[in-house]
């Protein structure tokens, strides 16, 4: 039923029908309504969508870092190199987290420990996952700081996070994440809090290091420009589901889901005119608290017909390595 392209070639992460629920005072919220996607070795996959679409929940579900009391993955599989992460014990999971799958977050200040030097924090990550001695780990920390192009790493290794700028802290986070040469790096809005010139530096750094180390990257972002410049493939999420996935070139050349089209058209674009009205996506994102019959985008969709309000569409192939969850994708594409 699902589009499962490229079965044979070196799949690193295979997510199948992943379902995650949040439990609040006012009932169960299905934050992820059964999503499936793959990441191949060494590739960069972009995950795009607006607030609340489930991008970050996907990342936390993969790493099993969801808040214990309020959220739970209730269905599906997360196969990493063939092993289902959801079936691992917590100690087994700890061996994978930080060593084979690492993560960097949007706000580097809150993800670094303010009372330890950055060198200590990188060395700690190294020592947890390798048999390195303290001095070997510190040497590795210094080497990593040099790799992420922090000037004067011999001195900076003894700095505390508050002594660094936002861009430098994000470099430290990257150094820490890559210190154990993971196979997969999950980056959740890594440049959103940064200025645009620093963002360009950090994105370039992630791509360079990825190439050097062969790490695959799952890049979560709300910015289509960032996806276009850094990713090979992308999935577009809306209200806890994947509505479209494709190679980045194809996604921008032939957006096939009405939401993807709406997203691309509503962003101001210097290549189109100024001072004109932007095409809006009418309405607002639905609340996931109430069950949605049919396609969750149907209430805002200019193409919606009666079936859209009744049955939820699943991802169907619309081209090579391109799938969309839309009943009317044939009419939508090229529109």
């Amino acid at each position, binding site marked *: 039923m699902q589009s499962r392209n490229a079965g044979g070639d070196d799949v690193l992460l295979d997510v199948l029908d992943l379902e995650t629920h949040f439990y609040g005072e006012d009932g169960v919220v299905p934050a992820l309504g059964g999503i499936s996607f793959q990441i191949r070795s060494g590739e960069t996959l972009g995950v795009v969508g607006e607030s609340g679409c489930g991008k970050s929940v996907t990342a936390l579900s993969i790493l099993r870092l969801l808040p214990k009391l309020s959220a739970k993955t209730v269905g599906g599989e997360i196969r990493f190199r063939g092993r289902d992460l959801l079936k691992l014990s917590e100690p087994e999971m700890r061996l994978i987290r930080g060593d084979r799958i690492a993560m960097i977050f949007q706000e580097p200040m809150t993800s670094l420990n303010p009372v330890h030097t950055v060198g200590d924090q990188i060395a700690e990550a190294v020592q947890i996952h390798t048999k390195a001695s303290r001095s070997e780990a510190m040497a590795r920390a210094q080497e990593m700081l040099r790799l992420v192009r922090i000037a004067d790493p011999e001195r900076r290794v003894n700095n505390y996070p508050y002594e660094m700028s936002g861009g430098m802290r994000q470099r430290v986070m990257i150094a820490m994440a890559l210190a154990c040469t993971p196979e997969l790096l999950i980056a959740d809005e890594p440049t959103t809090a940064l200025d*645009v010139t620093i963002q360009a530096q950090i994105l370039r750094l992630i791509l360079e290091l990825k190439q050097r180390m062969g790490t695959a990257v799952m890049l979560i972002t709300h910015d289509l420009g960032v996806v276009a410049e850094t990713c090979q493939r992308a999935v577009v999420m809306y209200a806890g589901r994947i509505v479209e996935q494709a190679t980045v070139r194809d996604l921008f050349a032939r957006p096939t889901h009405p939401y993807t089209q709406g*997203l691309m058209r509503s962003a101001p674009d210097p290549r189109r005119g100024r001072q004109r009205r932007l095409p809006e996506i009418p309405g607002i994102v639905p609340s996931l608290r109430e069950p949605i019959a049919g396609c969750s985008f149907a209430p805002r969709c200019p193409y919606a017909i009666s079936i859209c309000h009744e049955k939820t569409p699943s991802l169907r192939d619309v081209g090579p390595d391109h799938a969309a969850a839309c009943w009317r994708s044939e009419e939508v594409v090229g529109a």
Partner: protein
Amino acid sequence: MTGPLLKVENLTKHYTVGAGFLRKSVPVVRAVEDVSFSVEAGETLCVVGESGCGKSTIARLLMRIVEPTSGRVMIDGTDIAGLKKEPLRAWRRRMQMVFQDPYSSLNPRLTAEQIITEPVENFERLRRKQRQALAADLLRKVGMSPEMMHRLPSELSGGQRQRLGIARALSLQPSLIIADEAVSALDVSVQAQILNLLLDLQQQMNIAFVFISHDLSVVHHIGHRVAVMYLGRIVELAPCEALFANPVHPYTEALLAAAPVPDPTRVRLEVPLEGEVPSPIDPPHGCAFHPRCPLAIERCREVLPALVPMADGRVVACHVRAPAPATDFSGQPPAPAMLARSCATSTVSS
């Protein structure tokens, strides 16, 4: 026409930091240095730059939330810096502000009706009927249903809250709205709705905007003229189209090149700008951009470049790209009156 609606001359704001009685010299943050510009009625002037460049301080200075260290802010020719309490209150009716965060800028205990009519009630008492009529009118103006007036901010979406913030700013029928990163916290589909709303309101009510943003695609979309700031100073001020088509200052150029473009077929050639913005406590000598500038020459390290008017109505502060005319080689900035005039040459096109 008697002159610009808003005229800012040599505006400067220094903050002292870490003042302690044991310290001999108190470090000074030069948040805004010698900034001059003007805004015509119905025009949008965008202020762009990265964190710490002074753009939010400018918003606060214009609103007189903070007092300038020196310089003047004039509305219709009256210097608001000198105004005392009552006249200042009257001038505040002409200028309103829209804030970045639609969550923290609305009182969570007030209803939408109370929030958007509060500014008017500062000036006059309204009867219940009047207040409701005003609220309904304002809500319609920002594209919301009047039935929403009894809701609390917590019952509204982010986009609806930002509409409330705009309705509140509109309530006094200001001629100028200062929007400080007003769409930055919004998702792109909601951002489109708000940008459309701002463009509509400007057309209908001839409101001028000082639109502060770090997002260049938004600035390109909405601006008539753009001021690019770096470390507290304007480095380039140009008509919007000219700036994006042909950035003159190397910093403007780097800023435009760094912005990601949603086109995967485009090949990125530019090397991103190296280094980071220096501290405004101890800015570099000469041109503050010279440590990161690929074009820097000896003179850039020593002499502060003045804003030089160019043929297409822009002003640029760069020794390399916009050398001062040979006759005026003193390194002194041009007289503020002349500068303000050259900034105002390009007016609203539509």
